Each structure stands twice: as structure tokens, then as C-alpha cells.
């Protein structure tokens, strides 16, 4: 079996001979550029700047060399433009705050503010207000809230729909090219089409728009779930209509060459609880997720991927009812997210993509031995009868000791009989 076949088998809940591994297929399963450099050094690869493929979180390209070394089975096909609205092309060198030479897209336009923090501009246009900031002692960006006054009693739906547009011919050509390049690699393919995330709190501030209108403040958006639920429902209804039309066009180009669609990264969980109760989720979100997932399931072989950090156990049944096939990052250290319980209760219906090792404590601050023990334990629990893709709980951050990442990889290789 090649990687793609193994992925298909595990997505179909069939026990495979080895565990399927992902690093870098989506903006929530990636590796920070600093860690990629450390890994390249560790494995003695040629010294060269890592490409920043997801500039918001400074995630880097897991290229073919590293894919082979890390035994990665899937390739992530990124959307044509980044979260800052520019394309990943015309690479140029950039020196980070932590002294690393990296490659960034040509439109990665930045300035320093009076505190020495790094500001970045939507579509690479420094004539408009910056849309995100990286603190001088930080490792990635966070959105700058650009909230213009809006009509609180009757906010405009159109203003919050600006970013959800029909795919263009340029987008379709891009996707055709992605399939041409990656379609015959034998790897599983994860498509990040965009446009299918409902109310993703990372996207609400619209770091990619030059002049965002509508509700862009995060707290106001959260409160809107109580004060104006009909407004949110109408946004999601219209957005999902656009998304379905886009999926039809994209499917005509990529067909069943892709295996998984990264649908939504909206976090419904905190460390100990959720952002809403199941009834609210089922009222405001579920019908519109369902509309997109239903179209995909009745017309394609794709599986749909839902990311939500946090303690979301009470919402998992609703995620399943919304038509999602895959849950990520499976935050095993959050309240109620006991791996054995999750696997027993939901393992037949949901693929766990993540949960391989806790990143808040074990991977970041534990010993290599502790990392190895946890990886073994989680693989033992989650991989029974398939339905598991190994990934850490969210991206691997800059500060993780490289020996812990190597311990994780070595353990996976042993489990897979490759060491």
C-alpha cells in the first residue's frame, strides 16, 4: 500500500499495517519555521532558508526531503492566497526577530511600529492599515482588530459576506496545477480550498481585506451569537450557498484526486468548556455545515475535516450530525477529552486526526522519554480499527526541544516497523 491507499483505508475505518502520519497538510497540523530549521540541522540536510507557507503562524514548508525523513503520508494543498490576501510566490529572504533567515512571499510587506513590533499589510499594501502584528518577542502574528462603526441594531449582511466570492478562473487554474504537480505522488492530498469555515474567529478580523466592513471585533462577534443569531444564520446560509457553488466548480477541476477537504478551523472549545451549548451549535451552525458536507458526500469521495481546539466533547455528536468525517486536533489534555472515552464513543463515526501527543505540556516541556511514552499510548488507543491520522495536538511550535520532536518521529517509526 502507498501513502494514499493507507490514508484512504484509515479514513474508511479499516485497520492498516501502519499509522498514517501528517505534518503540514493544514494550517493546524504544521510546523513552525524555526522548528523546521532545527529538524533540517538535526538530520544534516543542506542549510538553506525555510519557506514560510503560512505567514500568520509562521508555519513552514514540509518539503519532499523532510516528508521522507518524517515519513509523512499526506500533502497539504494550500489555498491560492494566504491569510494576508497575497499569493505564495516571488520568494524573498527575510530575517526574523529570532535571527532566522527564511523565505517569504514577495508581498510579505512589513514595517516596525514604535515598540519595535512587526506590522504586516493585507495584499502587501503598506498604504492601508496593517492587519496583523508580531510582537518583537513573539514567534507569529495576531490580528489587529479594525472595527469601523457599524449599525448595531441592523448590521449589514453584505459587509460580512465580502470575502465569500465565487472562485475565479485563476483559482481553478491554480487547483488544476496543484493536482498536476501532486496528483501522482502517491501521497494523500488535503485541499485547503477556503470559504467553508463558518464564523472562524481567526478569519472574522479579515486580515486579508484592505478595508474590512461589518462586525470584525472578536468579542462583538461572540456576543452576536446571543444578540443577533438570525444575522449569523443568514451570513452562514448565504456563505454556504456560495461555497457549494464553488465546490461544484472545484470538483470539476480536481475530481477525486484529493482525499480530504479542510473545511473549518473555528474553535468551539476553551481549555475546559465550549463557546456555546449543543443546542446553540445545532441552531446556528449545524444546518449550514450540513449543507456543504452533504453536497460533498453526495458528489465526491472527499472526507471533510473539522478543526476545533479545546474541550469539545459535548459538541462531538453535533459535529458528526453536521456531516464531518474528521476531527482535529483532538486536544487530549482539555477537560473531558479522554482519549479512550473519545475512541470508544465516537471512533466508529469519526476519524481522529491529531491527539498523537499533547503540545501544551508533554511535547513542549516533557522529556524525550515522556514524549515517546505518550506517542505509544495515544497510537495504541486511537489506531485500533483505523480512523486515525497521527498529528500532534495542533502545530509544533518554535520553542519545542528538537530532541522531543525526534523522539516522537523515532517512536512512530518503531511503531510502523520502519526503524
Amino acid at each position: 500500500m502507498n501513502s494514499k491507499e493507507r490514508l484512504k483505508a484509515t479514513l474508511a475505518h479499516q485497520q492498516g499495517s501502519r499509522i498514517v502520519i501528517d505534518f503540514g497538510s493544514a494550517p493546524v497540523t504544521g510546523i513552525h519555521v524555526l522548528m523546521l530549521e532545527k529538524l533540517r540541522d538535526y538530520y544534516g540536510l543542506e542549510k538553506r532558508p525555510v519557506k514560510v507557507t503560512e505567514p500568520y503562524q509562521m508555519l513552514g514548508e514540509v518539503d519532499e526531503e523532510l516528508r521522507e525523513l518524517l515519513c509523512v503520508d499526506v500533502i497539504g494543498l494550500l489555498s491560492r492566497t494566504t491569510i494576508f490576501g497575497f499569493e505564495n510566490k516571488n520568494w524573498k529572504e527575510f530575517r526574523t526577530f529570532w535571527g532566522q533567515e527564511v523565505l517569504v512571499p514577495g508581498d510579505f510587506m512589513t514595517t516596525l511600529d514604535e515598540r519595535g513590533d512587526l506590522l504586516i499589510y493585507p495584499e502587501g499594501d503598506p498604504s492601508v492599515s496593517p492587519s496583523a502584528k508580531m510582537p518583537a518577542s513573539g514567534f507569529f502574528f495576531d490580528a489587529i482588530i479594525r472595527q469601523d462603526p457599524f449599525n448595531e441594531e441592523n448590521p449589514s449582511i453584505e459587509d460580512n459576506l465580502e470575502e465569500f466570492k465565487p472562485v475565479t478562473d485563476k483559482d481553478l487554474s491554480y487547483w488544476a496545477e496543484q493536482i498536476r504537480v501532486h496528483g501522482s505522488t502517491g501521497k494523500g492530498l488535503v485541499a485547503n480550498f477556503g470559504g467553508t469555515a463558518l464564523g472562524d474567529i481567526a478569519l472574522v478580523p479579515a486580515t486579508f481585506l484592505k478595508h474590512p466592513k461589518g462586525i470584525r471585533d472578536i468579542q462583538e462577534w461572540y456576543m452576536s451569537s446571543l444578540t443577533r443569531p438570525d444575522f449569523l444564520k443568514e451570513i452562514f446560509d448565504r456563505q454556504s450557498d456560495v461555497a457549494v457553488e464553488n465546490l461544484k466548480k472545484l470538483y470539476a477541476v480536481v475530481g477525486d484526486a484529493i482525499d480530504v477537504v479542510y473545511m473549518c478551523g473555528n474553535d468551539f472549545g476553551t481549555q475546559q468548556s465550549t463557546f456555546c451549548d449543543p443546542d446553540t451549535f445545532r441552531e446556528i451552525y449545524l444546518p449550514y455545515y450540513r449543507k456543504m458536507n452533504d453536497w460533498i458526500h453526495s458528489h465526491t469521495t472527499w472526507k471533510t475535516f473539522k478543526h476545533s481546539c479545546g474541550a469539545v466533547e459535548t459538541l462531538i455528536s453535533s459535529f458528526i450530525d453536521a456531516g464531518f468525517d474528521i476531527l482535529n486536533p483532538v486536544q487530549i489534555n482539555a477537560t473531558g477529552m479522554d482519549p479512550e472515552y473519545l475512541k470508544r464513543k465516537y471512533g466508529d463515526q469519526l476519524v481522529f486526526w491529531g491527539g498523537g501527543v499533547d503540545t501544551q505540556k508533554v511535547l513542549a516541556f516533557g522529556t524525550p522519554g515522556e514524549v515517546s511514552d505518550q506517542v505509544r499510548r495515544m497510537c495504541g488507543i486511537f489506531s485500533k480499527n483505523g480512523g486515525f491520522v497521527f498529528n500532534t495536538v495542533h502545530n509544533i511550535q518554535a520553542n519545542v526541544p528538537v530532541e522531543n520532536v525526534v523522539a516522537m518521529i523515532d517512536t512512530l517509526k518503531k511503531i510502523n516497523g520502519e526503524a
Partner: protein
Amino acid sequence: MMNSDFLERIAYCVEYGKVSLQSPYPPDMKGQDGADEITRKALDEGTAPGLILSEGLVKGMERIGVKFRAKQVFVPHVLMSAKAMNTAMEHLKPYFLSGAVQRKGTVLIGTVAGDLHDIGKNIVAMMIEGGGWEVINLGVDVKDEELIEEINKHPGCIVALSALLTTTMVNMENTVRKIKINNPNTRIMIGGAPVTREFCDEIGADFYSPDPQGVVEYLKTII
């Protein structure tokens, strides 16, 4: 109307996030006065502003904090309660400024250097304010020097630090160490998703809570 009626109505508006007459939320209170109007009327009819704070706002925020901890309500509900509280608090401002109403003390709160996350920190700030404390919110990415300068400006203050990231938890450790060197008697509370009680002990902070109500309850014990 009796004072106690006003106070209970204010507490109720805060608990359920009823900001003002115009607010459509909660739907079953549509068309009714909110925290804004009732606080104004209470003051106009002679209710002591100190009572409005302690028996109205603090009570309402305490009820929502307890429900939040019990997972009966969620972040949006707490934000609405805080909005109602802040609206009422505007009417009390002159009494704080004149000294007619005293708060329990001052809490400086901020997200540590390198970290720009502020929702969790803001919710804690709102709950502390709703607990009857003056809160000075220093924002995000607060540098150690700024924090120590503010501590020196507010003798006896308590410090609350937040970190959402494993990469900025280390900055929290440095910040706590510097505060303890410069201002050894300053109490420091810490929180944030990756932060734990063990980490709190390890870095020499005084208190950790996994939820905002725990902070309010800790503060009650140290007055």
C-alpha cells in the same frame, strides 16, 4: 421602589446581560429597562452607590461567574453580563472619583510580553471588576518594565498575568521573577490555557485559577 428592589433588578440585569432598554437581548426582557436605566433610577431615588456596587453589580457578576464555572453559560453570556455591568459602572464613576465609593483595592492585569491574546484576560478583568475591585487593564504584550512602573504607581496592588501560548509562558516566569525582586510583597495571580497550578508553584507566583470565578474568590480571601 425599595432600595432592595433596585439592587436585585440591577443584579438580575447583570446576570442575564440586559444592558439597556434598547437592547434586544435577552429576548424575554425586550422592551424592559436594563442595567443602564435601573442604575440611573436607583441613584436618582437615593440608593447608595456603594450598595449598587456591592449588592447589585458584584452580586450579578458573581452569579454569572458561578454559572460559567459550572458550564451552564459560555463566553458570550459573560461578555454580555460584563457589558451590562460596564454600562451601570459608568453611572458610578463620579462616586469612585470623589471617593464616595471605595473599591476593595487595585488589580493590574495584562498579557505577558510576546503574547497578543486578550479575550481570556479581558474576561478575568471584567469578573475582577465585577468583584468590586478597581482594574487597570494594561493590555497585551506587556513589557516587564511597564508592569513594574505601574506596580510602583499603585502601592499595594495585586498583579494578574495571562499567557495563552507555550512560547510565552517562559516570559511569564521571567516577569514573575522580576516583580518578586523589585516588589517582593506584590501578590501575583496567573492564568491562561497552558498554565497550571504546578507551573504557578514552579515560577513562584502566588495563585493560579483555571477559571475567572476562582480569581474573584481568591481575592475575597486576601482583603
